């Protein structure tokens, strides 16, 4: 079978399975989340039949057979009809997600790329200078910082740079007295607010890339073609970057693809500490308010993004590494 068609079939099957898991989670859980959701929503005023139908389909209030519930759920999910949030009544779940997405995509997306590039370069350096001081500092330091819980890094940065030194704002994605727009002043304000969250994600996330790249690189440096390149008298930098690093990078690309997919889910623990208006903070608010429709929809959106990113990297991998075709 053509490998691309095989991958496509596998992707569609995984997508279907993930969407189905999302359908069954609330139905397998103790209690009836659907009833709780309806009761909370009713507190905001009368529920119209369309809203009720959407909640029933997502959360599994027993009415109709399981098969018909499942079809309604698939239909609603495909069209982005996730019902109404009762934490942010009367906004729809879809509009809430659409408003949170840009914040998360810009912040977490940018930092993920920076962390990957910087971490990978440090990993190359550590492996190339293996056993020297640079390597020990980078490896032990990277191991230590990747053990930092995200929220803990966030709290410490908050305490030092926002609370003690007063250099950066304490919370939020923009100043409280303005509404989001695309003026230069607003963008500058938003960038200013994102410095500490970005630093948090960078500190806690850098180590993983560094360690992964170092291990791949050490293995690649043991290959014959690297020894051959060295024996040919090529400059050290050429051997490290053009010969070894290019090949050592390949296994890390899969992880990078997953990380890019995860961007959509935001950095929940970081966003919570800074009350940053992204997808992670929205999911947290859905969780603490037991806003099940919002929570299920967010989980679905996050999972599907990871799957799509994974699929894209999988296809790309075949182009970059002929051995994997």
């Amino acid at each position, binding site marked *: 079978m053509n490998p691309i068609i095989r991958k496509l079939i*596998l992707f569609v*099957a*995984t997508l279907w*399975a*993930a969407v189905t*898991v999302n359908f069954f*989670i*609330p139905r397998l*859980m*103790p*209690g009836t*989340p659907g009833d709780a959701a309806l009761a909370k929503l009713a507190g905001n005023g009368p529920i119209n039949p369309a809203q009720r139908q959407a909640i029933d389909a997502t959360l599994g209030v027993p009415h109709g057979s399981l098969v018909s519930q499942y079809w309604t759920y698939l239909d609603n999910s495909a069209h982005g009809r996730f019902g109404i949030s009762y934490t942010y009544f009367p906004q729809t779940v879809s509009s809430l997600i659409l408003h949170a997405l840009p914040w998360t995509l810009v912040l977490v997306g940018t930092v993920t790329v920076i962390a990957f590039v910087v971490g990978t370069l440090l990993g190359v350096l550590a492996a190339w200078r*293996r*056993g020297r001081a640079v390597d020990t500092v980078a*490896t*032990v330091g990277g*191991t*230590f910082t*990747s*053990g*930092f*819980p*995200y*929220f*803990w890094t966030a*709290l*410490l940065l*908050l*305490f030092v740079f926002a*609370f003690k030194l007063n250099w950066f704002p304490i919370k939020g994605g923009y100043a409280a007295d303005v509404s989001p727009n695309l003026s230069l002043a607003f963008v500058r304000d938003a960038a200013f607010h994102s410095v500490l969250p970005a630093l948090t994600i960078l500190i806690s996330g850098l180590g993983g890339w560094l360690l992964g790249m170092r*291990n791949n690189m*050490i*293995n690649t440096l*043991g290959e014959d073609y690297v020894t051959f390149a060295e024996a040919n008298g090529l400059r050290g930098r050429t051997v490290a970057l053009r010969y070894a690093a290019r090949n050592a990078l390949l296994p890390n690309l899969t992880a990078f693809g*997953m990380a890019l*997919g*995860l961007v959509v*889910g935001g950095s*929940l*623990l970081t966003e*919570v*500490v800074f009350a940053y208006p992204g997808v992670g903070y929205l*999911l*947290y608010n859905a*969780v*603490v308010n*037991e806003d099940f429709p919002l*929570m*299920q929809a*967010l*989980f679905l959106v*996050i*999972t599907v993004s*990871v*799957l799509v990113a*994974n699929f894209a990297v999988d296809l790309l991998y075949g182009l970059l590494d002929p051995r994997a075709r």
Partner: protein
Amino acid sequence: MSAPQVGLGLGGPAVTGGPAAAPEYGPAALSRLPRPLQVGWRAILTIWANGKARIGIVILAILILAALSAPLIAPYSPTASNFGQSLPPSGAHWLGTTGSGQDVLSRLIFGARVSLFVAFAAGVLSTIIAITVGVFAGYLRGFAEETIGFVVNLFLVIPALPLMIVLATYVPSRGVDVIVLVVVITGWAWGARVLRAQTSTLRNRDFVAAAEFSGERPGRVVFREILPNMTSLVAASFLGAATAAVLGEAGLEFLGLGNPSTISWGTMLFWAQNSNALLTGQWLQILAPGLCIALLATSLSLVNFGIDALSNPRLREGGSR
């Protein structure tokens, strides 16, 4: 250590180096030990020879000792709240007291028990699932292999933290056992994937074919012939799952998805944040538990460096390539 352990099956066919090589690594008495114990002892020496792993073992040992002897070394009861509220560090309270008048140091020492328990329980359970699923998926062929592989990949791509949070939110009672369960559900797949890949390469080796031709049942081939050759990968997947469990537990508890009356590092951070400890200048209440979590996670990862060196000689210090 006693002789009957011979039957545990650590000495698989591919473990090289006979008893003759043993004395140069350790005491002379080593060569009199049963072979599996010699193999285990050499493994420990290889891990210990790695400087980073040695630091990890020392940190881990200190944390385990503190957890085991918590009632002896903690200055006060972790639940006593009859001290002044939000006291700064002093001779009586080295790390100060919490907003509800509890001794921070005592809570920190007792908190080690929960974090270590979650790390080991979740690590062991994840590894058992990873071994069972991974080794069978790698050993079986055809439709069964494809199906198990598909399920493993599905669990790998579903994002762990959101799944943990969603699962924990639905469960009404949120004790430590629920946290372990949630962490295991989201954490076993990495180990399964690694073990599956290794099994499918070992499956084609001659000693496996020999075992099959001599009429051994699949279960025996898998557990007695293939598995002993992956001891280091099993250990690595245990440490990986344990590290993820420590951070996962801390995250869930910080978000308030644990039982807030549990005495653990995660709930300490939850209470510190909820009583605005940073704004009232009680920064030690944030720093101390977080640092302990980071140290525990780091020590587990550092030990993993030594284990990597076991399975991959290129990663050994001093570069034996």
